[in-house]
């Protein structure tokens, strides 16, 4: 069974919500924390409802609507989201009030909106969708597991149109905490220089990317979600290489069949080493594109990578800003997305042109 990507929507630190050619207007940054370029959310949500929504809820609802609009679907059969951090801002608000007000006089809104499944729930409420609704909170596999759930449901035949997506936000509080762990660079880095940065650490990012998946092709569809696999805490690079070989074999292809690899390089010299190893072992002559210098690092950043891979197939070219190495062939039929988060959560997503 083919699983078609009938619609996509993305809200990110790039101008991805506006439509038009991929990265036509590149947003270049010189900082260690990227924040979303917000569209006008009032086009999807009533002002009275927006007032209760935090940024992550708005970006999720916005990206979900973009993907539904592109697919021409008003009512999906299921809504599945993946998020590692959830509604972090409202969680912070609620916990801060709990401390500051000695657990007295707590307001309901922040509490209600602070759960991880708020976004999927909010999308369902706005659409009036009573179907399957689930949220995966699995750190660096949150998005991948939401896709896996969607794939299994579609293969079971219990749904025809599934809205699946990954989203995470960065807040002042979380950025401060994660900075203490040494995840981010100590000094600002320019967007287009990040991937060749010789230092440790990366840049923080955020975003929401949604996909309308279906076994039925729609007129504007360009790609199928051909394969998905995850690998947790590989012991060494050979295990990753072996896993990729097996993954390609399971999907009836070899490295030679891949036209473009999209990797999750994030500019951290330690974390990018594995991409070098994989490229050298399996894809030495392949063109490679990257995305985390555009959207920043976050646990569900692979969703942005998949959105970009789908757009590359649609346009049959890789925007200069996304090219890391080489030149993609004229016809881009198969794109392999290889991403890892924090060196522990490795994932593979294979997209094929229709």
């Amino acid at each position, binding site marked *: 069974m083919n699983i078609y990507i009938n619609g996509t929507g993305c809200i990110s630190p790039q101008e991805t919500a506006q439509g038009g050619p991929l990265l036509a207007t590149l947003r270049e940054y010189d900082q260690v924390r990227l924040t979303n370029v917000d569209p006008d959310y009032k086009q999807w949500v009533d002002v*009275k409802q*927006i007032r209760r929504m935090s940024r992550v809820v708005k970006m999720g609802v916005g990206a979900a609507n973009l993907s539904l609009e592109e697919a021409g679907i008003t009512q999906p059969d299921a809504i599945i989201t993946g998020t590692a951090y959830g509604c972090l801002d409202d969680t912070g608000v609620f916990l801060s009030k709990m401390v500051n007000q000695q657990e007295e*006089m707590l307001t309901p*809104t922040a509490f209600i909106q602070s759960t991880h499944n708020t976004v999927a729930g909010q999308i369902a409420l706005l659409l009036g969708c009573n179907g399957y609704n689930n949220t995966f909170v699995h750190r660096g596999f949150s998005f991948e597991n939401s896709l896996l759930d969607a794939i299994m449901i579609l293969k079971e035949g219990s749904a025809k149109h599934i809205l699946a997506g990954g989203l995470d936000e960065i807040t002042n509080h979380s950025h401060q905490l994660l900075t203490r762990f040494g995840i981010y660079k100590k000094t600002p880095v320019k967007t287009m220089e990040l991937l060749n940065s010789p230092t440790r650490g990366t840049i923080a990012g955020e975003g929401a990317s949604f996909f309308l998946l279906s076994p039925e092709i729609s007129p504007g569809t360009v790609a199928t979600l051909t394969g998905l696999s995850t690998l947790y805490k590989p012991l060494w690079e050979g295990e990753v290489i072996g896993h990729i070989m097996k993954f390609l074999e399971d999907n009836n292809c070899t490295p030679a069949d891949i036209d473009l690899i999209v990797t999750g390089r994030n500019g951290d010299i330690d974390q990018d080493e594995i991409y070098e190893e994989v490229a050298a072992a399996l894809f030495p002559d392949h063109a490679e594109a990257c995305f985390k210098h555009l959207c920043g690092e976050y646990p569900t950043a692979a969703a942005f990578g998949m959105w970009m891979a789908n757009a590359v197939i649609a346009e049959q070219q890789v925007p200069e800003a996304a090219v890391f190495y080489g030149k993609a062939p004229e016809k881009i039929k198969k794109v392999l997305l290889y991403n890892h988060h924090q060196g522990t959560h490795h994932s593979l997503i294979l997209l094929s042109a229709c």
Partner: protein
Amino acid sequence: MADLKAQIIEQLNLQEVAPESIGNDQSLFSKEGLGLDSIDALELIVLLQQHYNLRIANPEQGPQIFQSVRTMATYITANQTVQA
């Protein structure tokens, strides 16, 4: 009442609503009025506690107290006087 309107706007995050656009007798919960809902009602109860140290002892009084800004102000004035 102007202060109370500002507090309501802040507590409920009523974007694009100016204090002067809320009528003193305008209904808070009807569709023709501000169109508030049950979550807003909880927020207004918290507002009374936070700003005026008032707890609504009898929940059945709620609809009457939160009918409009004027009824809220009347309740606040009456009960603060009682406390004083």
